């Protein structure tokens, strides 16, 4: 738990993702879902990557999931854990695992959302063991 948290660079929103980043600033984590085929996807797009429909919408995520894979970057001033987390909604996202013992992480482990502050931008969705 003694890890010093690395400073997280701010994400740069595009017109397609402004609502997503405004939501994280308000404490909410959204995923994008297609109303035509019903599937959620990641990263969020206006156009569904499965059926190319433009009938996509924001839905609030439960913010829970499991670690699909991860790696602790040791060759860094402040080591950090990069990961893919599969959300309970069924889509898998790139993220960081934070506020945890890096040596105790395991694939398949249940995790929950933590919105982590960034340097001068909206917070980014990260995860910590549930």
């Amino acid at each position: 738990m003694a890890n010093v948290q690395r400073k997280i660079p701010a994400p740069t929103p595009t017109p397609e993702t402004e609502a997503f980043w405004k939501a994280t600033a308000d404490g909410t984590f959204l995923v994008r879902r297609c109303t035509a085929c019903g599937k959620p996807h990641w990263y969020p797009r206006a156009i569904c990557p499965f059926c190319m429909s433009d009938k996509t919408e924001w839905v609030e995520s439960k913010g829970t999931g499991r670690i699909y894979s991860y790696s602790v970057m040791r060759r860094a001033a402040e080591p950090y854990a990069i990961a893919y987390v599969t959300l309970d909604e069924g889509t898998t996202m790139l993220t960081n695992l934070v506020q945890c013992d890096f040596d105790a992480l395991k694939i398949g482990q249940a995790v929950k959302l933590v919105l982590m502050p960034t340097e001068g931008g909206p917070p980014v969705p990260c995860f910590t063991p549930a």
Partner: protein
Amino acid sequence: MTIKGKAYIAGAYEHPTRKAPDKSLAQLHAEVAIGALADAGLTKDDVDGYFCAGDAPGMGPLSMVDYLNLRVRHVDSTDVGGSSYLLHVAHAAEAIAAGKCRVALITLAGRPRSEGMATGTQPRAGNLAQPDVQFEYPYGVTVANAYAMVAMRHMHEFGTTSEQLAWIKVAASHHAQHNPHAMLRDVVTVADVVNSPMVADPLHRLDCCVISDGGGALLVVAPEVAKSLKRPLVKVIGAGEAPKGQLGGAVDLTYSGARYSGAAAFAEAGVKPSDIKYASIYDSFTITVLMQLEDLGFCAKGEGGKFVADGNLISGVGKLPFNTDGGGLCNNHPANRGGITKVIEAVRQLRGEAHPAVQVRNCDVALAHGTGGLLGTRHGSATLIMERE
């Protein structure tokens, strides 16, 4: 329509430098072009097609065509990272088959070592219009940790071990000892690899390739041109390409684009993995090799760890001699893009011009495969099969 037999690799040249602080990037591209032309016995005026990727300075091919003062009728600067140059060979063969050019020059060069790039361990923001950047750069994606997540999942899913991955480096080092230009010529052991410092779990320092300056060039030519020259005939018989990404969030790190590019190349060539006498397999990291060997069909999915163990990739020892120049792991990874050196060593093997200590006997069919970009996020995959005629 096929490219099988429609083009030959008549010139291949690897720059001997591994550190070039005194040369410009354009100059390195020009030096490798000279080397490949001399190897083939052709001149600048014979070149009517030019291929390069993102390592070339300037807009696509324009600056290098101008620097070299080429008069070409076909250009292609498709950039799929380190796999670009294998794809360029295939695209050159297509262009030759379609009559768009007869002598295609492909160049790669770079000087990341002189420029002091923290190539594999530094997050890079890239172009902010790239749709994935805002969802990845904040998290510190680097080359090393993106590949490391693939290794971590492979270990979880199939029980692959660090010791098995280490055998890939061990095999490369056995070959590099015979290459006077290789950056790392000392033979290493499995223990050396697993005891080297951890970079990104589970990849150690010795699981990673070298960072080198340098470059290479190839000449892909029409059959009648190849047959007019004095070099052994190396024929392109099959190729495949396949980008792969995160599949809209249905992420699956257990396979790479090689599953598709390899199948396409084998089908076109009409050969099987068991026909391949020598394989150049992209080795940015040990895990890159393991994944590609499985996806290309040299062993079943999940069996890569057992396949590479106990020296099976060492020439003269194992069943599948790989990267007999020492590969990116020990010899050279110019411009952080190892695709061209993969083709060059395969050409040496098919010509019988590899170092005698690593030359594969009766090497009549060889494969070269490249993975460009990041295996763990999005990557290009290109497979090439060549035959000695």
